[in-house]
């Protein structure tokens, strides 16, 4: 397992306390799980994603991620409508481990409130939480 200092947290992304990352892409945001989350989960072997068009509120479950040993739920970092899901994850869930911020992205969302993005944690604030034993 990685030390907190080894966990990759790109500066341009925002994070939730539940270990999701969010990238701003114009009107949309892209969502996935952080390097810390994938490392904690271990080998990810199954991912269940929402349907395109689903409206999901902040804090609600949007996906289920299973490693060999455990089942984990992913919580929506901000309210919105699912515009696209990362289909290839279904056949290759290991992408979440290999490249959590690239090929391992999970959903593209049209947020209800475009300003919600800036209210999420910065990389620095998220890392501080992790150090605090979050």
């Amino acid at each position, binding site marked *: *397992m990685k030390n907190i200092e080894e966990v990759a947290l790109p500066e341009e992304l925002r994070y939730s306390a539940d270990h999701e990352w969010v990238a701003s892409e114009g009107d949309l945001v892209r969502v996935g799980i952080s390097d810390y989350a994938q490392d904690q989960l*271990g*080998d990810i*072997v199954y991912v269940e994603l929402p349907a395109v068009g689903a409206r999901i509120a902040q804090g609600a479950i949007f996906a289920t991620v*299973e490693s*060999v*040993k455990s*089942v984990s739920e992913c919580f929506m970092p901000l309210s919105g409508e699912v515009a696209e899901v990362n289909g290839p994850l279904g056949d290759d869930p290991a992408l979440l481990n290999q490249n959590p911020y690239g090929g391992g992205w999970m959903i593209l969302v049209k947020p209800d409130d475009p300003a919600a993005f800036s209210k999420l944690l910065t990389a620095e604030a998220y890392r501080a939480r992790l150090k605090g034993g979050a």
Partner: protein
Amino acid sequence: MSELLKTVLHERHVAQGATMVDFGGWHMPLQYRTGIVEEHLATRKSAGLFDVSHMGRFIVRGAGALHFLQHLLSNNAAALDIGFAQYTKIPNDRGGALDDAYLYRFTPDEYLLVVNASNREADWRYLSQMLSLFPDVQMEEVSESMAMISLQGPRSQTILEEVITGGALPRPLKNALGTVTAGERRILVSRTGYTGEPLGFECFLAAADAPWLWDLLLEKGAAPVGLGARDTLRLEAGLPLFGHELGKDPTGAEIPIFASSLARFAVSFSPLKGAFVGREPLAVQSAALKKIQAGDYSSIGDLPRIIMPFALRGRGIARAGFRVFRGENEVGFVTSGTMVPFWNAAGAREMRAIGLMLVDSRLRRGDPVEIEIRGNRVEAVAVAYHLRSEKVPVPPETVQAKPVLEAVIPAEEGIQGSGCRICPA
């Protein structure tokens, strides 16, 4: 909260970057930096190294030892030759299991009983209480003074041979035992394991020598394997785990020992054995099982559910406790389920979702079922086994267990076939 127990190899696990977890009161490695999938595959392809020192180890000796073991264990200890081990259960008087165990006979005058870590204290209490009923028996707990390291997989013998300087490895027979030396150090070795690999060894040695052996086996190329892959390996081999396939089911009801396919190798009704704890209910279960296998369900009430392997056909992972359906009828539930890696025919790595389920005894191999995963019914099929191994556990290195997808074979061939490590010696 009480302090977690640590094996003599605890520092090694932490230094190797293992993810440590509480397992049955012990602080044990769930996985090393390599992860469960790599550790599983390393065992199947090469050799996996497991610290199993957390398991309970009791020495039983004295003129009355055999009588004591015959009364409290389900297998026939009188049939256990010197230099062999046998799989056994510690039955209760209702035909359920207090634990499952392995009984080793390295020397003529004493037996070594290895029990599950989670039951170690309860087993010790129970057996100690029973001691007073049997003259001339002594029990000694050696869980701390003696360590236990398991080396499993096609390269295990080659690796072990590089380490030993004297004595001989056990003969290439399932459950055979031997004593070897490495310089001044003495190691008891058995051809046993919990992975389904035809080639595999368990090493018993002085706790003080364990870090030395651990380091040396790693240096010779063995891969450290944590409890995560230990579970996926045993599940792929279809081997039961206490608390899942033995003991109590999720509703709190007792799982009959004969629900588990290994019971027929672990329960003896030999006249040599005579009366023992649980004999009557076990005989009733055994009779019911024979009838069920012959297609006669007149005694199904005595063994309404049995444990069968399943392969998931749909997407997802069926976890322990999930409900199993056949048509509209609920027929049981999953006792263990996971996803395991394997190499397909083309040599590429794949994953498959498999498990064991406790289901209506009328279910047959090849029968389709559905497993409820988070509200959705997912297709699965009852299978005979997930893994086959070569019959004779000898090198060359090509001898290894092979995954079998959705194996469906006639009932009479038995789920063990030749694939299981826990079979009669």
